[in-house]
């Protein structure tokens, strides 16, 4: 279990100014499920993860792993396994040697190195220098390193970055399996679509603040707006009928959008009023849209849409 309390990290940004990269956040990452840590780039995900691992010291607040500060852990790699940066390896050292020194430093038997290499499918290239690895292979090596101590808490920062579709699916299955074994699994990403397939629970962060902390299903129903699109010859009458029932109705060109009632009920209601219907569709905005909507205010760098750019 990972528990953060009023966790804050302030960075000075030059000229005496400072900003809170992580701004007094509270959260609990529970065991037995995959918790997705979602946020745009620069939202504070990596800083938070570094603080969990004791690499960055919080400006204020605390974060604990299994009830104690990570630095105080008697068995660091056996308590928490982490993939922070796939490039953070010496390019001249082989994958096997990289894992061997890590194992040695924590008194983990060397036999475990072969096991984790097999686990991530790097066995055939284990003797190669890590500098020759593709980003995807680096990610796999990072995951192998995280699993060295068979830890009950696993933290992965953007693990699917650079992986091919097969690799992405592998990470997804792997994360699920870890959670099913009762482990605490904390995975960051800036891609909602990925999290939707992988996470049970969501922690959305933007500009260093927690924007949502809920189950994936809750997030979907709360944030992914849905409406029923109605096309009918007598559009004004239909709108009047539905509006008369206290539903939220808006008109867009040749269609009306109804919020608050499912499609079959809308159809039946219009049928009762003998109104012909040409189209009746439930439209769900994607999770990606929901996430964008939620974090729109907290994105660090906005791109100017091409059309706006041409305007002047």
């Amino acid at each position: 279990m990972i528990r953060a309390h009023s966790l804050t990290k302030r960075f000075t940004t030059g000229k005496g100014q400072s900003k809170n990269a992580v701004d007094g956040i509270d959260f609990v990452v529970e065991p037995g499920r995959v918790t997705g840590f979602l946020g745009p780039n620069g939202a504070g995900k990596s800083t938070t993860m570094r603080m969990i691992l004791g690499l960055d010291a919080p400006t204020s607040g605390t974060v604990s792993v299994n009830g104690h500060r990570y630095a105080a852990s008697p068995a660091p790699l056996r308590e928490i396994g982490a993939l922070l940066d796939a490039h953070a390896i010496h390019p001249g050292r082989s994958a096997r040697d990289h894992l061997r020194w890590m194992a040695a430093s924590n008194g983990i038997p060397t036999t475990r190195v072969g096991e984790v290499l097999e686990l991530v499918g790097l066995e055939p290239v284990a003797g190669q220098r890590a500098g020759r690895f593709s980003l995807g292979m680096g990610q796999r090596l990072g995951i192998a390193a995280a699993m060295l101590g068979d830890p009950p808490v696993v933290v992965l920062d953007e693990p699917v970055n650079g992986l091919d579709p097969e690799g992405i699916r592998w990470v997804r299955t792997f994360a699920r399996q870890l959670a099913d074994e009762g482990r605490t699994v904390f995975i960051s990403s800036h891609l909602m679509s990925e999290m939707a397939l992988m996470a049970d629970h969501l922690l959305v962060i933007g500009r260093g603040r927690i924007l949502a902390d809920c189950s994936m299903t809750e997030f979907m129903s709360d944030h992914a707006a849905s409406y029923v699109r109605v096309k009918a010859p007598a559009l004004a009458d239909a709108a009047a009928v539905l509006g008369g029932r206290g539903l939220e109705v808006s008109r867009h060109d040749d269609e009306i959008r109804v919020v608050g009632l499912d499609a079959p009920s809308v159809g039946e209601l219009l049928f009762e009023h003998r109104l012909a219907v040409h189209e009746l569709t439930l439209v769900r905005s994607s999770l990606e849209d929901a996430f964008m909507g939620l974090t729109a205010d907290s994105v660090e760098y906005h791109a100017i849409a091409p059309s706006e750019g041409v305007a002047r």
Partner: protein
Amino acid sequence: MTATLMESGRVVERGDVARPSFAAVLRGEWLKLRTVRSTWWTLLATFVLGAGLTILMCWGNADWLASADADESPGSFITWGMMVAQITAVVLGALVVTTEYGTGMIRTTFAAVPARGRVLAAKAVLVTVVFFVVGTGTALVGYAGGNYFLDREGIGMALEGDVLRSMYGSGLYLAGIGIFTLAVGFLLRHTAGTISVVLALMLILGNMVNLVPGAVGEWLTKLMPGNAGSAVSTPVAFNPNLLDPWPGFGVFLVEIAVLLAAAYVVVRRRDA
């Protein structure tokens, strides 16, 4: 202390888990050191420069040293190559630390061993042992080869007294430079910066402070790390105004201790 671990596929609390020993951290660092090629290249350079240049200098100067117009002692030549080989100790001392910062691996290291002081200590111990052994061995080979040419001119030296001291003294000096640079590496975190600063301090600044007038300049020269530490590595110093071997090495050790202490404080406080 209590730790939460996995056992037989289940999450369990264990109250009897001991922190990985310093020996474990040392084993990890030793594996790191010997599994990159740069370590072996650098140590090969130590040997080739240290022993090779000594032999070359003795071969080239033996007959002049034996002549009446020699104004230097053969004792100044018998470890000559070590003056150049010290550069390799600077390089390896830096690389052991700065490549980790350069690649970002330092975060993997500190995540695996959150007790950062132990990482620093393990690296320092390794650099010390490696350079003491390699430095002493190199000096002995240089002596054996160089003394062959000196012997031919009748000015050979027995492996005893100051000559013997200069052998393990060479090992000690190289080890000292290695840790000195390692500490600077932890402070600066950049390979090029660390190597330049230490080389400038040892080779350039060490000679330039000589230009400061009067007793101040004289003492500054004596106390500069390269000057104070190197006397132990030669039977007869080229520069007669330096501190005696052991007092000089004592000064060098104090300087190393100060840098290590600074590195220890900074490494523990700074975000990785």
